[in-house]
């Protein structure tokens, strides 16, 4: 159900602006991660540089959202769903910023990898990337549509990403032993894998915040949900 407008139009405008900035930040984070991973797969340093450059704008948006959130708390003293929306927006921006940092880290590792001959083990990263990005997009969707079911269903999906990370890590360590010449390259891929695993963690956090915003329910740290 769409909530009716506030009597105070400026309150609606402030909440809409906050939400728009979160959506903008989310789009930029998605683009940054996309560029970073394409820079890795396509061995394109320009894309990596773009991904790293995106981070600056995302950092600024994080600060803007925090500032706007505090401003709304001060000016309008929101309660109930309004308060949850403001708190969630501020928490979302923090998670998005950290996701974008992972994009920057991936881009930096990709640039190092691009300086050496390609490694076929980069294929291990693809399913992880797809899974992490699908989690990311669904978590933001859950927030935008206030979809409690989607948000809740996302939590157990992190287990698969953790498992993919473990499998990739084991294989890459094995390859390091077999092919010590490429040790640095394998190490960089391990870092990339870990970055994607962290993206999944942040997507989980966003989904939890989405559920809180929509239903006032705190589903963090509940093993029963994660195990489903």
């Amino acid at each position, binding site marked *: *159900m769409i*909530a*009716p*407008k*506030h*009597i*105070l139009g400026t*309150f609606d405008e402030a909440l809409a602006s906050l939400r728009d900035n979160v959506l903008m930040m989310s789009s930029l984070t998605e683009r940054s991660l996309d560029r970073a991973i394409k820079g890795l797969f396509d061995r394109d340093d320009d894309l990596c540089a773009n991904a790293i450059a995106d981070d600056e704008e995302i950092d600024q948006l994080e600060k803007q959202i925090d500032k706007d959130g505090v401003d709304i708390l001060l000016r*309008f*003293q*929101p*309660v*109930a*769903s*309004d*308060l*949850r929306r403001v708190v969630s927006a501020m928490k979302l921006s923090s998670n998005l910023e950290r996701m974008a940092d992972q994009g920057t880290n991936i881009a930096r590792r990709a640039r190092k990898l691009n300086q050496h001959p390609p490694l076929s083990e980069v294929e291990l990263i693809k399913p992880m990337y797809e899974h992490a990005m699908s989690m990311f997009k669904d978590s933001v969707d859950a927030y935008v549509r206030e979809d409690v079911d989607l948000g809740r269903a996302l939590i157990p999906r992190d287990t698969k990403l953790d498992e993919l990370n473990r499998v990739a890590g084991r294989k890459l360590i094995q390859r390091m032993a077999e092919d010590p010449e490429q040790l640095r390259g394998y190490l960089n891929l391990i870092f990339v894998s870990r970055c994607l695993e962290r993206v999944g963690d942040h997507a989980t956090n966003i989904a939890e915040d989405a559920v809180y915003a929509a239903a*006032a329910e705190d589903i963090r740290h509940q093993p029963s949900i994660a195990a489903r």
Partner: protein
Amino acid sequence: MVSLLKMPETLSQQLPRQMNRPTGESQENAVHVRDVDFAYGNHQVLHDVNLEIPPRAVTAFIGPSGCGKTTLLRCINRMNDLIDGARITRGSILLDNTDIHASGVDVVDLRRRVGMVFQKSNPFPKSIYDNIAYGLRIAGVTKRSRIDEAVEKSLRASALWDEVKDRLDVSAFGLSGGQQQRLCIARALAVEPDVVLMDEPCSALDPIATAKIEELIHQLKRQYTMVIVTHNMQQAGRCSDLTAFFYLGRLIEFGSTAKIFSNPTERKTEDYITGRFG
């Protein structure tokens, strides 16, 4: 259990009981509103209101103007009896499980047990001391030492003592608005009530005076059953343990203040407290 039906005790007899009031989970001094309909003449303003107001807690009544919250507050000490044609048409209000409208209930004693503080401070045109002493004298207390003791105790309880102790004989009109309101609270406390009703007690006060009254409310709830009507959502959130939301004469939602202001069950409550109608 205290019955309203028995003859009023003298205040001097009541004081020790008041001082030794248990602080446990006893329901003594709880107010129960049961199936209450209320009308001013033919105009019904409360519809089937059911509410259990616990002792030693602050219950806030919120809702848009005309929703019936002040009317209900005034029902609790039968203040509406003073208005022609105003009456409870169905249901009952119980204090300590005794119907406050039962025959034999002494209205004067009821109003002593259920004190009231109004929106606008209304000190009597008397000295600070005499304002506090007034209720005691009306109740037949004549011993000067007893009155002195009650005046000091009430002024201390209302956090006014330090500000006025050296000028108890000056006119109450010389006090600031916030001090006058605290004087009215002290006056209500002097007769040792069980329940304190407050009808928008801070609406005419500046933020500092408001903060003092709110702190006072917080202190007083340890001893009294407190009910406050307020239009200030933040005040209700800060001061009360329970909140009742009224709309068009009906109780829409009643629950813990934390729940009402974080995740109300009813859509109407949510829309009102978030400023979407009113």
